[in-house]
């Protein structure tokens, strides 16, 4: 394995470069995935049948909490990658851990939110609107949940193996994923919740 010392660790080998470009392509596919969900959401937004509409079930308080938690986690993972570039293993681990804990808190809030919806009579089966609402939120939430495990695995690897071209590459790609989920959340926050509450 040839290591190019002039480049950041995550870009230092040929395979690392391929991995990062490949992940950007994957994010392109993810953008299409969420774009389809959003397009379907806007189409079905008013198709509430006999179920509730968005303005009847959305509550701003938990959503604000979720937003702050997720945006903060995007900041801390940025710090984590910065620490990784400085080859500070301890700080990297700390910031990644904080990120994952914030992610866990986000998922916790979202689970509570889902149960509230179902209690209020807005289940997956209620109407076209609730189907697409819970699917869109659920797809994002499932991504975050998956990310928790993925991030945990990488964390363990950094702890055991240190900051190598391989672990640095994985951490960097994971940070791309995490930032992407944040961007998707900003869209959900603006165009699902805020628009729905107006």
């Amino acid at each position, binding site marked *: 394995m040839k290591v190019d010392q002039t480049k950041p660790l995550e870009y230092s080998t040929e395979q690392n470069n391929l991995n990062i470009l490949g992940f950007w*392509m994957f994010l392109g596919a993810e953008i299409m995935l969420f774009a389809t969900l959003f397009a*379907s959401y806007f189409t079905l937004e008013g*198709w509430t049948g006999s179920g509730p509409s968005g303005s009847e079930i959305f509550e701003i308080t938990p959503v604000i909490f979720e937003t702050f938690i997720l945006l903060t986690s995007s900041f801390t993972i940025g710090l984590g990658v910065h620490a990784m570039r400085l080859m500070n293993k301890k700080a990297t681990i700390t910031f990644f851990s904080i990120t994952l804990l914030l992610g866990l808190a986000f998922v916790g809030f979202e689970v509570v939110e889902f149960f509230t919806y179902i209690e209020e009579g807005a289940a997956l089966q209620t109407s076209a609107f609730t189907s697409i609402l819970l*699917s869109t939120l659920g797809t994002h939430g499932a991504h975050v949940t998956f990310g928790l495990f993925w991030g945990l*695995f990488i964390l363990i690897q950094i702890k055991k193996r240190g900051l190598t071209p391989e672990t640095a590459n994985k951490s960097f790609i994971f940070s791309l994923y995490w930032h992407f989920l944040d961007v998707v959340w900003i869209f959900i926050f603006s165009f699902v919740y805020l628009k729905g509450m107006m």
Partner: protein
Amino acid sequence: MDFFDRFAIPHPSPVIYASMVAITLTLVAIVAGVTYTKKWGYLWREWLTTVDHKRIGMMYLISALLMLFRGGADAIMMRAQTALPENTLLDSQHYNEIFTTHGVVMIIFMAMAFIMALMNFVVPLQIGARDVAFPRLNALSFWLYFWGAMLFNISFVIGGSPDAGWTSYFPLAGNEFSQSVGTNYYMIAIQIAGLGTLITGINFIVTILKMRAPGMTLMKMPMFTWSALITNLIIVFAFPVLTVALAMGTIDRLFGGNFFTTTDGGMDMLWANLFWVWGHPEVYILILPAFGIYSEIIPTFARRNLYGYKSMVASIVLISVLSFVVWVHHFFTMGQGAMVNSIFSITTMAIAIPTGIKIFNWLFTLWKGKITITVPMLYSLGFIPIFTIGGVTGVMLGMSAADYQYHNTMFLVAHFHLVIIPGVVFAMLAGLTYWWPKMFGFMLNERIGKLSFWLISIGTCVAFFPMFISGLDGQARRMYTYSEATGFGIWNMLSFVGAIMLAAGFVTIVYNIYYSTRYASRDIGSDPWDARSLEWATHTPVPDYNFAITPQVNSSEAFWDSKKNGHKLFSGEYKEIHMPNNSGVPFIMSAIFFVLGFSLVFSIWVLAVIALLGIFACLAHRSFEQDHGYHIPVEEVKETEEKLGGAR
């Protein structure tokens, strides 16, 4: 419904019992054969765990040929049923199932697999690479496709096949009107295979963008590689739409969601839109690689450079963009209004422009060329007129006002078969014959190959031209029978004759493979066609590492340049070569996907959860695994090169 009732087929008939027996016997024969010849270890080490793009390509090829016959059997049954008025060979349920599976099998499991086969084998060789960017993912792609196809194919004998058409429009495909598990198979099997396709898309984009031989700029790439790049871009941007649509359909059918229902706000037209937002680009995912293959074969056998390289590239890119803005033309009659229909009419007809450019470029390449008529060239020459007829009738269908007359008639069926057969099937057979010597080290017999070509091309015309007439006379597609008074009988009988000719043509191809395997000369060198691009510059059979020394490229026809103008492709010393390790995980993980799919189809939740955990375990294993591949030492490279006929 009782739990076990779901596994019963909704319309038992002797044909289905016969296929049950046939499937069981085949499975037993395969297991017994492999055990008897003690090939399990070989099969596992060399094929099931391989990450080599060439072997994966071959496995795609075998699967595609099998699926061709599977989908072909459906086609023959369809044509046999409608050959006579008031025929009772099949009942309506059975007919619904076979036209649905014919469409799905041919598009998703045959044509896609065939394209993947040629792309996998050829693209890394054409760009002078050692393998694809992510060999392990490539294996995963294949096995997801394979197990998805297997899941779809057992539907016929367990629980019943999907019966709502390959477009599976809701509300027909919803629980209310499609009560058997058939449509569950559709939603889930295509989802699994589609995941594999998406992964291939990402893999090949990175491979083509990052792993080209030094000197090969984007505008020096062979045309097949160009078409593969654009195709994979379309895949990455179109397949997620299908993923979402299938997931919504699955939620509707399994969990009582209300996306596409007719009550509680559901919107059935959303399915039609999402399906075709994927479905139309999918058409171009199939046709662009075919265009790429013709652009390789025509210059080779006309002994001229490809005419209009830049306009070829530009038209591929233009087609890929337009492919995303025409989807409404699949349902002009479903109530969008004149304004929307007109816009989509114009975009649809606009596609004829870049396609026309390509047709003229091929014709100009032939102009004043020294043409040799080989089997691949015959397919390419046959493609141009038949495809043009199919394409021009497509422009007719694209006029939204006139489409009210043609919509859902046999005219439409004739149109899309006459683009897809010369466009895709001819191209795949041409590519198969063309690259066969590189894959297997001998050539397919030319005489039998020409017979196949004539049977298939005449069969295509005989099978589908009559449908134009019966369609204009008002015969609707997907009708399992019709009365004698309609006068459709003669046209359908002609179609049946054409279908038989097509079947005969495909049988001769299999015979050709058998005959050539036994009798063809193995002494053909590495460049039997006197071809132009890099895949012919390496040895036959291609060594594991493809190229011992990475080639230096200076033009879009690098190998031709090296042969005729003395350009030196390979210079430098042998170095040790880094190779990826084989892995069984892609196979195992995809097999677990099959279990997951099966348990979802039949709502066996416990098993589904166990399978999900299994998939998760495979992912975790991959995350923690430290696999740095292995190195082939210089001596071994030297030895292999000398054994294969001297240094290159």
